[in-house]
């Protein structure tokens, strides 16, 4: 995959290979936290930051520790430990030095540890053998794409509060249906560029 320009990967991971709408990763917090635009923006920022950070760290660990010792099969456990530790350190730093951001992110930061989009990005990155720059672009792009999707969903859900949704479909049910419709719409972008 040496031939794809990092900026192409960045754009593609936002629109055509969106983490939620093309890969359906990170659905749990996507459904749970998409009730208000403000909070979904918060978790979107947090996910973007953690995605970028962990893709860098995991890239370095994978290419400079795991590959030389032929331990690629350990990537799952290594990636998960790194993500957990990274989130925890970031939480401490943000709580100490950026109190305003800490209060706006609130409980979302620790929740990200178990967001499968984070592990997904690290795994895609090594499966598709991205270069270092490509990995950074992929991390940032996937985060922004995830944020785009959750904020759009929050906007729709705020409007839907006033709509006569059938009782059995209220809440998660209608959210999943809307996600499917959004995914269909995003397929329209898929002809532009494909990084899969």
């Amino acid at each position, binding site marked *: 995959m040496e031939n794809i320009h990092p900026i192409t990967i960045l754009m593609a991971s936002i629109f055509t290979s969106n983490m939620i709408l093309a890969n359906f990763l990170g659905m749990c917090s996507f459904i749970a936290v998409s009730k208000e635009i403000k909070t979904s923006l918060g978790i979107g920022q947090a996910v973007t930051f953690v995605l970028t950070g962990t893709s860098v760290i995991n890239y370095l660990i994978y290419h400079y520790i795991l590959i030389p010792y032929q331990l690629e099969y350990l990537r799952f456990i290594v990636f998960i430990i790194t993500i957990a530790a990274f989130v925890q350190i970031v939480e401490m730093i943000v709580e100490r030095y950026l109190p305003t951001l800490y*209060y706006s992110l609130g409980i979302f930061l620790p929740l990200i540890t178990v967001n499968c989009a984070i592990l997904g990005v690290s795994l895609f990155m090594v499966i598709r053998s991205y270069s270092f720059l490509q990995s950074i672009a992929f991390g940032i792009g996937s985060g922004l794409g995830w944020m785009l999707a959750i904020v759009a969903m929050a906007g729709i859900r705020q409007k839907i509060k006033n709509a006569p949704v059938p009782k059995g479909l209220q809440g998660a049910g209608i959210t999943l249906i809307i996600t499917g419709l959004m995914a269909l719409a995003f397929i329209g972008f898929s002809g532009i560029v494909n990084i899969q």
Partner: protein
Amino acid sequence: MSTILITVLIITGIATLLAFLLTFADAYIADYGECKIIVNKDEELVVEGGSSLLSSLTEHDIYLPSACGGKGSCGYCKCKINEGAGPVLPTELSYLTEEDVENNIRLTCQVKVKEDMYIEIPEDLLHAKKYTAVVETAKDLTPNIRFLKLKITDGQEIEFLAGQYVQLLAPPYPGNPDEVYRAYSIASSTTETNSIDLIIGYVPDGIVTTYVHKHLSEGDEVSFNGPFGDFYLNDSDKDAVLVAVSTGMAPIRSILYEMLHKEIDRNTVFYFGARTREDLFMLDEMEMFEESLPRFKFVPVLSRATEEDQWEGEEGRVTDLIEKYLEEGENKEAYLCGGAPMIKSTIEALVEKGFKEEMIYFDEF
């Protein structure tokens, strides 16, 4: 063999590095140093930053009411924080009213001390302490009301105003997984500083009342904190009307002892309501007060006197007595203790007699 060794070493190495980083971060980044908590503008506490405000205050012997022990699930430990608390957290929101948020009232178990804080705590909470005691006497006054004398064993003395209450702790017991505090008025004299009396009714399924009635016996160790409350005998020479039903006797008994020991000579009448003769208690003490206090009268009233009771005294409710006996109430004080409906109807009856509402003091349970 060497593959296994390398694998283990690499994984251990990565984990060790991360653990080291986390420990390092915890020690240096999450270290908030010493912070000052300024209470009511004059008292300054120096605490180690990073823990919750509630536990920092407890370390300095300031006890805010807390039933859940800082888990953020009871909403009792509120206090006003003027500066240094940061924005309201989502975990507090369900326990704060809009008015609370406007007035900077926060849940102290959720707020972390990270910088100097300016807080306001009601004066009477500042005097509250935690006491350890043993049950010296436990006896049933009526089938549903238990009397406890708790002797303080930790060397402290309790100073309180006649009418105030303490919070008794029920430890976990079979059927109750958590530590729970409930408030009970002190029934003893303020001159007794090394023990307190409590009068506790039985409430079916009540956590602390079940503990007191079914699990507690003489010689057991208990703990309580206090004193709290703004219901106490005022220093005045106005005529006083005392009204209580059932365990509402407790603060009134303390007030009567206060009058006895301080030789307060006021025109005083005590209307005490119960259901049947079986529910009346401490009649001999009331007789003693009538003899010792020059202008004191005790009037019990039964709402459901039975034939066997052969009751010749007053019948009805305490409000009936107010209507029947009280003359014009201007310039008189009233002290009430009972359940919410009794307090409400008694206040109405007193106001009708010309009592000023600001001269009616009550303790509702």
